[in-house]
């Protein structure tokens, strides 16, 4: 029997975390569900994202000219019009009621079930006015070619001052899904660490462990083991997600998608370390599972707050608040990928922000480890943070 090295001890503890946790049925089920959601979300981007909007328009007797004008006009914008011929007004009413049509052209009127879509309204109005104008001009003897020229002038050319990145939308969509997943991993694996610490305390197995293992090694092994599971799960999700995206042609890796995925994986490692040691310290201050939410609600608030910051950032890409939050730990872990995907930050900014999180985590690490060490063997009522920090007993 020889004393184990620090590395061997930590590895042994991490290995136990990995084998025991991945054996759990709940883990397998949640992994499966997450994979399904990711595949579903990517298919949704494929189906609903991009591509032209299509409207179904019914054409009553004598409305053919307006309908054709609508189709012609729609071609110039990114809208598609599907026409259906209707025998009479009654048929139009039936089809509208059944939800088959968005609009019916009957007797010179625009008939809808309830609300007229504004895009469709302007198309139909424009087409109807155009047909009427054509008629009026034809009546006064203007020839067809002139009418066409007068009513369909060439649109002015658009000059773009800033270069538009055609892949930006895809990248932002991928980043948003990735950040939702990252948020889910951070909160669930952070809580897993806290639960694990409380489990060891409440079952008193910690007494046996700490009779032979130094507290910091136990903490390191647990954080490492749980983190490895979280990272592996995220990698699997990323692999399946990218596979689905490529197979369905929803995105290509050239669009900067790979950079975002790699970045999010790194953010997981950094963010998880930040939260995990704090969750472990929080868990160490209580002896019963039911006291845990109270001890960790500040942390949970931080993770959820970061997520809302990320949602805000995705709607306010260029704002000052977004820029600031993309640097402030731990918000940066969820906000920076969004900002980067919008094309608002360079690689060096991402690295700088990661560096800040590493520095803050490093500073918190010894603090959290001290709380853990002092509190993990205290049983009974929850240990106050101050008491846990200073290590003074009752």
């Amino acid at each position, binding site marked *: 029997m020889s004393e184990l090295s620090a590395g061997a001890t930590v590895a042994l503890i991490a290995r136990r975390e990995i084998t025991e946790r991945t054996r759990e049925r709940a883990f397998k089920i949640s992994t499966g569900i997450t994979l399904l959601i990711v595949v579903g979300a990517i298919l949704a981007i494929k189906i609903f994202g991009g591509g032209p909007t299509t409207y179904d328009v019914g054409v009553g007797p004598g409305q053919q000219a307006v309908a054709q004008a609508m189709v012609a006009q729609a071609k110039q914008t990114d809208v598609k019009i599907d026409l259906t011929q209707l025998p009479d007004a009654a048929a139009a009413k039936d089809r509208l009621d059944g939800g088959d049509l968005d609009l019916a052209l009957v007797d010179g009127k625009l008939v809808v079930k309830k609300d007229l879509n504004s895009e469709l309204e302007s198309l139909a109005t424009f087409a109807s006015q155009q047909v009427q104008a054509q008629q009026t001009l034809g009546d006064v003897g203007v020839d067809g070619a002139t009418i066409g020229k007068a009513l369909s002038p060439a649109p002015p050319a658009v000059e773009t001052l800033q270069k538009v990145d055609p892949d930006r939308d895809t990248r932002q969509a991928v980043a948003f899904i990735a950040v939702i997943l990252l948020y889910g991993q951070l909160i669930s694996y952070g809580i897993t660490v806290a639960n694990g610490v409380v489990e060891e305390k409440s*079952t008193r197995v910690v*007494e046996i462990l700490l*009779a032979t293992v130094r507290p910091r090694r136990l903490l390191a092994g647990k954080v490492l083991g749980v983190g490895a599971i979280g990272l592996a799960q995220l990698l699997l999700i990323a692999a399946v997600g990218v596979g689905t995206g490529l197979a369905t042609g929803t995105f290509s890796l050239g669009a900067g998608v790979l950079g975002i995925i790699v970045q999010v994986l790194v953010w997981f490692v950094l963010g998880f370390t930040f939260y995990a040691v704090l969750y472990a310290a929080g868990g160490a201050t209580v002896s019963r599972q039911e006291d845990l939410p109270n001890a960790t609600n500040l942390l949970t608030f931080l993770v959820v707050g970061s997520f809302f910051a990320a949602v805000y950032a995705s709607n306010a890409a260029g704002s000052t608040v977004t820029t600031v939050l993309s640097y402030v730990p731990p918000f940066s872990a969820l906000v920076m990928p969004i900002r980067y995907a919008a094309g608002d930050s360079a690689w060096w900014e991402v690295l700088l922000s990661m560096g800040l999180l590493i520095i803050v985590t490093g500073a918190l690490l010894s603090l959290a480890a001290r709380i853990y060490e002092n509190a993990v063997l205290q049983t009974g009522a929850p240990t106050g943070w101050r008491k846990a920090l200073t290590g003074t007993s009752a």
Partner: protein
Amino acid sequence: MLELDDLTKSYGDLRALDGVSFTVPRGTIFGFVGTNGAGKSTAMRIVLGVLSADSGRVCWEGQPLDVAARRRIGYMPEERGLYPKMRAAHQLAYLAELHGVSSGAADQAVRHWLDRLGLAERADDAVQTLSLGNQQRVQLAAALVHDPEVLVLDEPFSGLDPVGVDVMAGVLRERVAAGVACVFSSHQLELVEGLCDRVGIIRAGRMEAVGTVRELRQGREGHRLRVDVQGAPEAWADRLAVTVLEDGTQDGVRRTVLDPGDVGEQDVLDAARRAGEVTHFSRVEPTLTDLFRSVVSA
């Protein structure tokens, strides 16, 4: 030899340990008794290093115990500690490896102890699915699986059925015969008396008595007499200057246990004969329970 030397520990104003000292040589069992809250668990947790003493030290073979030396201790905490969802064999192998046993040797030790404790069939069951008695056996295996030189067991017998008690006692005797130093706490004093080479009685953080049961008896004033007298009247011994400890009648025979104090044994016998027909007259050695009561109530 395990040596606890002048340990003190206070929780605020409460003095949990007040100069606790005793030794446990290799190949002996030390029984640690005391009322609830007297300081037994505190002393044991200090030996294991899960609690630190305010002063005093714990030595093994003359060297103060450090983390490395504590790997040679097998520990059973007062409140049982195992991972509930982990399978018994995996759990034991894990604990053995944490104590520095190689993985091959750990598997072998796990098989040996599960067999020895009658748990071979339960090796792959999660601990939480085992009966309480079997959980206790796994807990003992957890203390033994790294082949420790010292066993520190806090209430190892509590909650065991008689068969379990026999298995536990048998294993302790076997390990001690192999040279292990063992200290355990218990409230089952008959068990302690039968199993232990030496006993320590702790009260309110102070060791009130330490020694073999025989030595403890000698240290106590007086001995006792048991007198059975057929047809004796109540209070037949009242004229003697003795202290009556027990008195009762069954089937017309009055059994009296008394502390004769300065009264001669023959004088007590004479008085008994005057009271009726003496059917039994003997010296009674105080049991550990008697000694414990007299220490605790002193």
